[in-house]
């Protein structure tokens, strides 16, 4: 590759200063995570006698086993299962209903199509945080408190994904639908055999974003899961603090915090390209 930025790229001292600046940034980003990791490997006594050590201790297995198996109110392993079901449910649910309705809006002319389009447009504007009390009442009315459907459905009632797929379907060449029609394919065959395979990357990118969105939910599970066995891990952490936080079981709480980060970190770092694409797509 030709050196395009010879005038601009810093060399020698300047280059080192650039790296130094970035490393300071990394320290700011990773210090809280590092400290949590250290705290999850030492004893409660080490932490209660400040300053706590800054290098990991040897109680890793003990703390994580305690968290996963017994936890404080409920086993953390169980909370992770709940979080996983919720995150996957939100991601799959939203993608499926959005693909179907985007297909209908783009490829059919039906009465009420415009109204439908504007109605879902409205949903872009109102995060769940704003309508918590009445949504809670609806969910309670259906007897969906402490249930997975109660955790999932209110969070898929938004049209961001529908818009995304609509935008994408609009860019699919008309010739493909025409060819499918000439060949006598039914609309659903066209959807399944042509549109879905073409949308693979978009679906995957959106899946990454929605999985993290679902996993990291806090307020909603806090409201509707009063039974500790239905807690998700992200909301369960706060429940581990006693009313005065002086005697909080820090090693177990910090082990739980680390466990709560692992799945989304794996997704973000492991699927970095899809993640960045999803981020850019969903803000268009």
């Amino acid at each position, binding site marked *: 590759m030709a050196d395009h930025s010879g005038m601009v790229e810093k060399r020698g001292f300047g280059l080192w200063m*650039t790296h130094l600046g970035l490393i300071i940034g990394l320290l700011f980003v990773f210090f809280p995570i590092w400290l949590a990791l250290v705290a999850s490997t030492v004893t409660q006594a080490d932490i209660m006698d400040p300053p706590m050590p800054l290098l990991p201790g040897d109680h890793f297995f003990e703390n994580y086993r305690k968290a996963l198996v017994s936890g404080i109110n409920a086993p953390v392993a169980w909370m992770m299962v709940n979080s996983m079901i919720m995150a996957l449910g939100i991601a799959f649910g939203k993608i499926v209903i959005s693909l179907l309705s985007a*297909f209908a809006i783009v490829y059919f002319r*039906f009465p009420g199509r415009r109204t439908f389009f504007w109605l879902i447009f409205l949903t872009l504007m109102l995060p769940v945080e704003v309508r918590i009390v009445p949504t809670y009442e609806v969910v309670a009315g259906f007897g969906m408190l402490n249930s997975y459907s109660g955790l999932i459905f209110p969070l898929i009632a938004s049209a961001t994904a529908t818009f995304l797929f609509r935008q994408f379907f609009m860019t699919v060449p008309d010739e493909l*639908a025409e060819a499918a029609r000439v060949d006598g394919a039914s*609309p659903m065959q066209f959807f399944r055999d042509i549109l879905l395979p073409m949308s693979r990357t978009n679906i995957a990118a959106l899946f990454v974003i929605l999985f993290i969105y679902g996993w990291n939910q806090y307020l909603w599970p806090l409201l509707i899961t009063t039974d500790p066995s239905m807690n998700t891990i992200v909301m369960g*952490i706060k429940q581990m603090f006693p009313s005065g936080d002086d005697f909080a079981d820090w090693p177990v709480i910090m082990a739980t915090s680390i466990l*709560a980060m692992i799945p989304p970190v794996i997704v973000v770092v492991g699927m970095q390209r899809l993640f960045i694409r999803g981020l850019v797509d969903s803000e268009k």
Partner: protein
Amino acid sequence: MEKRVTFKGLWLPLLLVLPQIVITAVFFFYPAGQAIWQSLFIPDPFGLSMKYVGLGNFEYLLGNPYYRASFVTTAVFSILVTVVSMGIALYLAVLADRLIKGSGVYRTLLIWPYAVAPAVAGVLWLFMFNTRVGVVSWYLGLLGYDWNHVLNGEEAMGLVVVASAWGRISYNFLFFLAGLQAIPKSVIEAAAIDGARFWTRFRTIVFPLLSPTTFFLLVVNIVYAFFETFGVIHTITSGGPQQSTTILVYKVYADGFVGQDLGSSAAQSVILLVIVGLLTIVQFKFIERRVHY
């Protein structure tokens, strides 16, 4: 924009949109309508019936010093979160953009906080600044500074701001880096050849060309600070001390679920709804403009 080629059918498309219609109607439009409806009533002291008060709840709220204080708190909080997070992210993105090799490694590491839930970020920062066991508060103590965010409202605000901004660095960094990389290198080279130093180039060329990204991030970050930082506030301060970190979304929760004041909570929801609506319009207007760039 319309498709030229469409399929025929009436029942099939209706069937296809049905799941979304049902879910949106039940879990979105009905509750949103309820919020608007409930905002016009107050329950009697026994919670048995509702009394119509028109805009009474709104008048009461706007005259209520606690609610007005919460408005100010929200404004201060969102501006600080936005400025701190975007400032750090821009600084890191400018540095990463200067690298030809290795910026990918930094990017991979800097996106971690995006994966950390706001509530978990809250717990991490609470741990560092805990008045009894926190490492940072302990070292501050050595320096003679007595950190106590449980009692000091300004320190509490500082802590929730930093914890919220920390979680947002990844997002801002990615968009700034993409914005910087989209600026043609030849423009910057030309300025360099003319003898413009780094800071001059940044001020006169890079920053103006980056303004679409910056405006976009401003709106998105304010929306984030308004609505997605509940977890940070709830884990670190629970709105305290003396409501000094009670942002509007936290107050909807505190009044509606803790205080059981449904009419007031619903009215607050409606006010927030208007604010989100305005922010969304700003965002769309801006994005429309961005298309012309």
